[in-house]
Structure formats: C-alpha cells, structure tokens
C-alpha cells in the first residue's frame, strides 16, 4: 500500500514507509488530529463564549420566508453569473480574434482594451458605471450596472485564455488550412477555434465560477444577488455572523461542484 495514492502529482516526495516511518507517521497523525480538533473546539468555545451559538440567532435561517429571501438571491446570482459568463465568452473570443488579427488597426485597439480591463480592478469599473454614469447622463438599469463591468473584466480575462489556446495549437493546423485554399477567416472559424474550444472546456466552467464570484459586487451596487441579500438579511435579523456563514456555504458548495465538473471535463475521454 502506498500512502500517497490520493495525489499522484506529488507521488515521489516520500518513499513507501518502513516500520519506523509508519510509527512516526502514526504519531504525527495523532498529534495533528489533536491540534486540528483543538483548534475547532477553540473556535466553537469562543463562539459559545460570545453567545453566537444561541439558537435564537440561528433560528431565522431555518424559517422558510428567510430561506426564500436568500435563495432568491442565489437565483439572481446564478442568472447574472450565467448571462455574464456567456456574454464575456462572446466578447472575449471576439477580442482575442481581434488581437490575433493581422491588421494592426484591429489588433492594437483590441490589445489595448484587453490589457486595460485586465489591469484595473473590477470594482473601479463598477463605481465608474454606478457613480460616473448618472453624472454624465447615462442611466443604466441595475442589472447592466453590474453586468457591463463584469463582462468587460471577465471578457478580457477570457480573451487571454482563448489567445493562449490559439497559440498553443499546432501551427500545422493553420498552415494546412491555408494550403487547402481557405481564407484566414475560414481557417480560424472552421479549423482553429473548434479545436481551441474543445481544449478549453474546463476554462468555460472556470469562467462561470469567475463571473459567479464577481457578481458578488452586487453588494456594492445594491443589486439583489446572494451577497447583497445576505447583507440585507443579516441586518434585518441582526445575525451577521450566521447569515454570512450560510451565504459563504452556498457559494462554496456551488463553486466547488462546478470546479469538480471542470476537473471531469479536463480528463481525457476514455474511449
């Protein structure tokens, strides 16, 4: 039996253990377990000490009206996450194609836009549309106040992923397409991009995780997504700790499930 089957990537870091090694490992396991359990107990004791485990504070989270309120936020988060992910993929792919274009008047502005939106923080864009928009006479619906910055930001990140995918594809594919007499545009849409997107399946899911996380900026623009709802609910029932705890758990469960899907897609198909 090998100890480290779980993680083939680091399989060679330690030998299969001898009797002394196994004994030491057992001790290390026991001590580490005690330390970890001790930490957990300490956290629980501290929470109990300050009275945060009181049933009164957790009770609202078991009641349907409050749950419905929070789940409504989850639905909004999923809606904006999915729609922004889809839009950012379209925008990002277009920008990547533009950046790879042979015409400098196309590639330069695309490169500039990608680099710009990648190197300024999302929240600055959000404030720009939130505060700056109305001041110059642009009134956007709340959805777009949040969606436009996310699409610009996540789209520029996606553009770089697509570009890396295109660059990592064998040059021979393009050459063969051109030799067949296809135009550059046809080579891209018929030969290169289909293969790139097949390789990028996991990245498509990661993009959704990214936009789901970024949609939490609804907190800033008061768009009723999950984090915003969590804040409102926490304020209303005066149990911030408990509500944020549940909110975090929802984000973690959903994104964890998605990242598992991405891992499954990453694995080569067993034919």
């Amino acid at each position, binding site marked *: 039996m090998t100890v480290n089957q779980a*993680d083939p990537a680091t399989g*060679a870091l330690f030998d299969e253990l001898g009797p002394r090694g196994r004994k030491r490992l057992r001790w290390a396991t026991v001590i580490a377990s005690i330390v970890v359990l001790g930490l957990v107990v300490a956290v629980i004791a501290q929470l109990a000490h300050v009275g*945060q485990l009181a049933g009164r504070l957790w009770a609202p989270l078991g009641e349907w009206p409050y749950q419905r309120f929070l789940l409504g936020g989850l639905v909004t988060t999923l809606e904006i996450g999915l729609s922004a992910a889809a839009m950012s993929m379209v925008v990002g792919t277009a920008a990547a194609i533009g950046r790879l274009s042979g015409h400098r008047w196309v590639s330069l502005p695309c490169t500039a836009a990608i680099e710009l939106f990648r190197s300024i923080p999302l*929240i600055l864009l959000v404030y720009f549309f939130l505060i700056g928009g109305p001041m110059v006479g642009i009134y956007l619906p709340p959805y777009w106040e949040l969606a436009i910055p996310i699409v610009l930001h996540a789209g520029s990140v996606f553009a770089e992923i697509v570009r890396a995918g295109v660059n990592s594809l064998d040059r021979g594919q393009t050459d063969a397409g051109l030799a067949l007499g296809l135009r550059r545009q046809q080579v891209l849409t018929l030969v290169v991009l289909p293969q790139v997107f097949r390789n990028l399946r996991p990245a498509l899911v990661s993009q959704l995780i990214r936009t789901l996380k970024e949609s*939490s900026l609804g907190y800033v623009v008061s768009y009723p997504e999950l984090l915003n709802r969590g804040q409102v609910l926490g304020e209303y029932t005066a149990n911030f700790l408990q509500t944020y705890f549940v909110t975090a758990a929802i984000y973690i469960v959903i994104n964890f499930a998605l*990242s598992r899907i991405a891992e499954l897609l990453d694995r080569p198909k067993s034919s």
Partner: protein
Amino acid sequence: MSILFDHLGELGTGLLTTLELSVLAFPLAVLLGTVLGVCRVSPVPPLRAVATGYVHCFRNAPLLLIMVMVVFALPYAGVTVPLFGSVVLGLGLYFASYVCETIRSGIASIPIGQIEAARAIGLGFGGVLREVVLPQTFRSMVQPLGNIFINTALGSALAAAVGVQELTGSARQFNLTYAQPVPSFVAAGIGYLLITLTAGQIIGFIERKVGIER
C-alpha cells in the same frame, strides 16, 4: 480637470494605501500558502485534509464576501481587528489558497529524478522539501507568484466597499465631493496600471535573475 490636479494628493495617499495593503497582505498570503502547500503534499492525512478543505473554501468564496465577513462578522465572534488589519487579513487568507495551489503545481513541476536522487542520498520528507524541492519551486514560481501579487493589488480595491480609503475609495470620495467622474476614475485607473506595469517589470527582472532554464 484643474480640481483634480489640486487634489492629486488625496489620490496619491490612496495609491500609497493600496500599495501598503498589497505589500502587507502578499507576504501573509505567501507564508500561509506555503505552510498549507507543504501540508497538502505531506504524508500526514489530517494535515492534508485541513489544507485541502482550506483551499476549497477560500478559492470558491468571493473575495468580497471574505472581506465583508472579516470586517463585519468577525467582531461578533469576539475578534476585533482594526479595519486596515481586517482588510489585510482578508486579502491574505484569500490569496493564501492561490499560493497553496501554485506551490503544489510548482512542486509537481520538479523533475522526479531530482527527488529520487535526494531520497537516494538519505534525505527524508523534510530534507527533500527544504534542500531540493522548495528552493527550486520558488524560483520556478516567480511568474505565478508575481501574478498573485498583481491580483492582490487589484483585489485590495474591494477594500473600498468596506470603507478603506485606498485608491478606488479615494477616487469614489473625490467623485462624490466634486462630481468629476471621468478624470478621477481615469486617474485611479492610471494608478493601478502603474502598479501592475511596475510589478510586471520587477517580476520579469527577478525571473531573469533567478529563473531556471529547462
């Protein structure tokens, strides 16, 4: 426009705060992330479980949620940290999970022959890591760690949402006072570009100095 130049100092202070946040949070993330990374590849099951659980929790939650929790929920648990410290803590906790994963893949990129050779001359798990694997891992990780630093600097902008007057916050404040959206946000954007471009240059320089050609 001229109002902006009169008050450039405020934005400058904001830029400094952004730098302070990033420069304090990044070492925290690297330190915690390295410990977690070592736990994650260690032969001790509970340590692996803790590190894996940590990474899953902190990578899958939005940074803003973590920051909001540290700032607004942690005091209810009886832990009061000053606002600035909370933000540094939130950033450090969040990016530690990214450092952990970077270290794990960095360790995986070390040629297996080196590890076998190190074990053959009698080094144990700690020795293999300390003497052979980690020094090379850090050298091959200059670029990914640099990206984490840049992301820390950009992530620190979320501090504006919890009330820290860093670059984004001061641009917002300036805007609310003088109603000059375009110049102030453009100035803040230039500030971030300065940070990311400078960091990129420094990372490239370090990479050339210590990088390993394979």
